[in-house]
């Protein structure tokens, strides 16, 4: 029999106003096993805590019930208090008589009656509590960053600067991500490449950072502090150690008709390519889908011209296994595909472009060398219409329900740059709302309107019709209350952004949760914004939600700080409330293993004593307490009832049910 102490808190008048605390402590004193019961004004105060500790010594308490505020508030506090008095932290139970009793009831009698029942349930539970000790698991002092965009680079640099090894896995042949495709950045209009490329070089040259470019994460096992990751390095048919990045092969390759993905298909490249001049690592890659040598075995020009002898047509995918303590997801975003938005004639006219394509057309390193020319005929456009919210803030299934957040600002930037470079152009922006919160953002937008004379029109574009080399734009002007017909030379669509398509399979691999839009969810939307609810997984950049560059970099550094905090530890305290199988009852059916979201359950053949001095070999479930998060899915899935959860055992919950229904 436990010796239980009951401590009823007044919480000033928060509890005492609607719960007769004196009566509660008196009634609960009559419960079996209760050897001491009292009440006090503020149980969480220094004096209250000392009282609990003294009572533990004086009455040799083996269990403590505290009737107070929510366990979410002070469970940890009271556990620590009791631990200091020599009682196991898990011998403490909280009866929530504030949030779930005194605050929701006005009547003293009702409140008191309910508080007594809640107290009884806690006492019934604590009778069955057993001391639990949290295990320790070691921390591998190495971090993995998935995605090498500005988010991944910044996170990796910050972690590496703190002295920990970091690996970046990037699926493209070069790191840099979307920011490499951008021309200028808002609100300062400084060149994106000028601020990004030095960071890319820093990452490549950092002795603590290793970049796996043209690679993908194939498999993730393990748990916080101890992830085992398999990385697939895709065959690029070029020996990375030999290639000098001279680029001769990319000039001599006879296969010239490959759509250049870096320029979003606005021009062509060769089958062997370096995405752009400042690529990191600057190594050529053969596009196996277009290379004649790989497809038919006839060509070999690149191999002949390569003075370094780096071309290797026989290269295959290689797999690398590495251990990590923490994983940062920085998979970024993509603009949505616009095939469902045919009213804007995106698939009908090459002069209807997305904003990212427009970015390439304005870029000095882009297909037109920075001169704004229409993709159809190479003429200079005189009227440009920008359409906002294409697929963003959309109620129907075609688009996304959320605001993509960056479009208002980059459109203001595009409009401004157009007017600055070509003052003879007329620029129209059709918007639903202009959303420009952010430091110096609204000032930037107002400059576009006031100084640069961009025509901002509230209203949506209904239809774009290509006609006689022009684009007829039909739109409504909501403020002017009229229909507008504009003959445009170019239409630029601010496509909604969505998480990268690799994010969903990756989330499954990491058991990290996602929202309905495939953005990774954070552990707490306000207080833990850069951690995934899955321990050891951190979030950086637009994989968590639409973000501009300043926000991405801020979150990247925040994620790095969290990773550094984790990697600084030599070992981690595990959650002691884990599942535990009764090996004598387990028949090794695998039901529990199938429902475990963490892969914490494995099976082992164990010897058991059989009849007549025989030994039987049986397959039984085993729980890795360092991996188990204590959800209890396995306990209910187990058909033989062999699995139970420490701290929330079947008996404990049943006892609570009994106490409440008594």
């Amino acid at each position, binding site marked *: 029999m436990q010796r239980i102490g009951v401590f009823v808190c007044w919480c000033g008048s928060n509890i005492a106003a609607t719960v007769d605390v004196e009566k509660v402590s008196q009634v609960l004193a009559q419960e079996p096993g209760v050897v001491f019961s009292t009440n006090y004004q503020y149980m969480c105060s220094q004096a209250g805590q000392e009282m609990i500790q003294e009572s533990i010594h004086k009455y040799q308490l083996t269990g403590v019930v505290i009737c107070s505020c*929510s*366990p*979410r508030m002070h469970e940890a506090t009271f556990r620590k208090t009791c631990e200091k008095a020599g009682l196991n932290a898990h011998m403490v139970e909280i009866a*929530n008589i*504030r*949030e*779930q*009793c005194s*605050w*929701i*009831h*006005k009547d003293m009698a*009702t*409140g008191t*009656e*309910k508080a007594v*029942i*809640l107290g009884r*349930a806690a006492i019934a539970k604590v009778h069955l509590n057993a001391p639990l000790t949290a295990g320790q698991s070691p921390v591998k002092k190495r971090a993995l960053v998935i995605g090498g965009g500005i988010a991944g680079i910044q996170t990796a640099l910050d972690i590496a600067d703190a002295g920990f090894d970091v690996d970046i896995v990037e699926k493209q042949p070069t790191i840099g991500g979307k920011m490499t495709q951008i021309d200028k950045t808002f609100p300062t209009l400084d060149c994106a490449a000028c601020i990004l490329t030095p960071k890319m070089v820093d990452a490549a040259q950092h002795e603590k950072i290793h970049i796996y470019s043209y690679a993908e994460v194939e498999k993730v096992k393990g748990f916080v502090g101890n992830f085992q990751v398999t990385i697939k390095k895709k065959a690029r048919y070029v020996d990375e150690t030999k290639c000098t990045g001279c680029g001769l092969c990319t000039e001599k390759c006879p296969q010239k008709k490959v759509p250049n993905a870096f320029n979003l298909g606005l021009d062509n490249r060769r089958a062997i390519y370096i995405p752009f001049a400042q690529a990191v690592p600057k190594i050529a890659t053969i596009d196996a889908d277009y290379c004649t040598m790989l497809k038919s075995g006839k060509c070999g020009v690149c191999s002949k011209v390569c003075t370094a002898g780096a071309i290797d047509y026989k290269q295959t995918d290689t797999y690398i296994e590495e251990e990590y303590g923490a994983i940062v997801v920085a998979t970024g975003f993509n603009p949505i595909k616009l095939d469902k938005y045919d009213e804007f004639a995106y698939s009908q006219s090459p002069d209807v472009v997305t904003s990212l394509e427009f970015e390439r057309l304005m870029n000095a390193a882009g297909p037109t060398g920075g001169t704004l020319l229409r993709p159809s005929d190479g003429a200079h456009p005189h009227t440009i219409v920008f359409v906002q919210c294409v697929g963003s803030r959309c109620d129907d299934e075609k688009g996304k329900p959320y605001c993509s957040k960056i479009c208002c600002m980059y459109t203001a930037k595009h409009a401004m740059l157009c007017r600055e470079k070509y003052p003879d152009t007329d620029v129209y922006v059709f918007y639903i709302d202009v959303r420009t919160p952010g430091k110096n953002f609204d000032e930037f937008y107002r400059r576009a309107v006031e100084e640069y004379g961009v025509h901002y029109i509230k209203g949506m574009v209904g239809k774009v019709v290509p006609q006689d080399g022009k684009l007829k734009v039909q739109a409504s002007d909501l403020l002017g209350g009229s229909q507008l017909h504009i003959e445009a030379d170019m239409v630029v669509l601010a496509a909604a952004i969505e998480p990268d398509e690799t994010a969903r399979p990756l989330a499954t691999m990491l*058991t990290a*949760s*996602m*929202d*309905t839009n495939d953005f990774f*969810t954070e552990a707490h939307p306000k207080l833990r914004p850069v951690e995934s*609810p*899955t321990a050891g997984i951190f979030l950086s950049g637009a994989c968590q939600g639409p973000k501009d560059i300043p926000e991405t970099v801020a979150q990247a550094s925040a994620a790095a700080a969290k990773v550094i905090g984790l990697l600084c530890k030599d070992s981690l305290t595990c959650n002691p*409330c884990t599942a535990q199988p009764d090996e004598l009852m387990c028949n090794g059916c695998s039901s529990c293993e199938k*429902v475990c*979201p963490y892969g914490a359950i494995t099976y082992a053949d164990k010897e058991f004593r059989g009849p007549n001095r025989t030994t039987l070999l049986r397959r039984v479930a085993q729980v890795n307490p360092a991996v188990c*998060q*204590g*959800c*209890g*899915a396995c*306990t*209910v*899935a187990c058909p033989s009832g062999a699995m139970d*959860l420490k701290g*929330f055992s*079947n008996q404990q*919950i*049943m006892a*609570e*049910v*009994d106490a*409440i*229904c*008594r």
Partner: protein
Amino acid sequence: MSVTENFKPTIVAFCCNWCSYAGADLSGTNRLQYPANVKIIRIPCSCRLNPMFVLRAFQKGADGVILCGCHPGDCHYTTGNYYARRRMTLLFSLLDFMGIERGRTRVEWVSAAEGAKFAATMNEFTETIMKLGPNRRLEDLRCRKD
């Protein structure tokens, strides 16, 4: 039989630790009233709710049992509430077949931000139970309160 005259139903609410228990706390913080008949038991995840607990509650004299968990897709343990949803669908059909009316059992998704929803749900649920009257079907007569 005027059973409903002084009928004070016992309602057991199983709340998952991450969303619904926090939602219940929030309705307290916002001082939103719901009947004292509702007593909450904290479980780590809605998937921890063993059908045995529901049966036990009815057997011991509970008049209604409600399970609250994170919204589908938001489970702290990724998939727990999906298991709970399927399991409870089955269990509640079985209970209905056994004579425990559908109205006595319920699953509701309440997030940590939905204090108002929690209180509203509990008000509504208690009202339903009041209308249904005391649970006599599965109650272990040896546990009779009166």
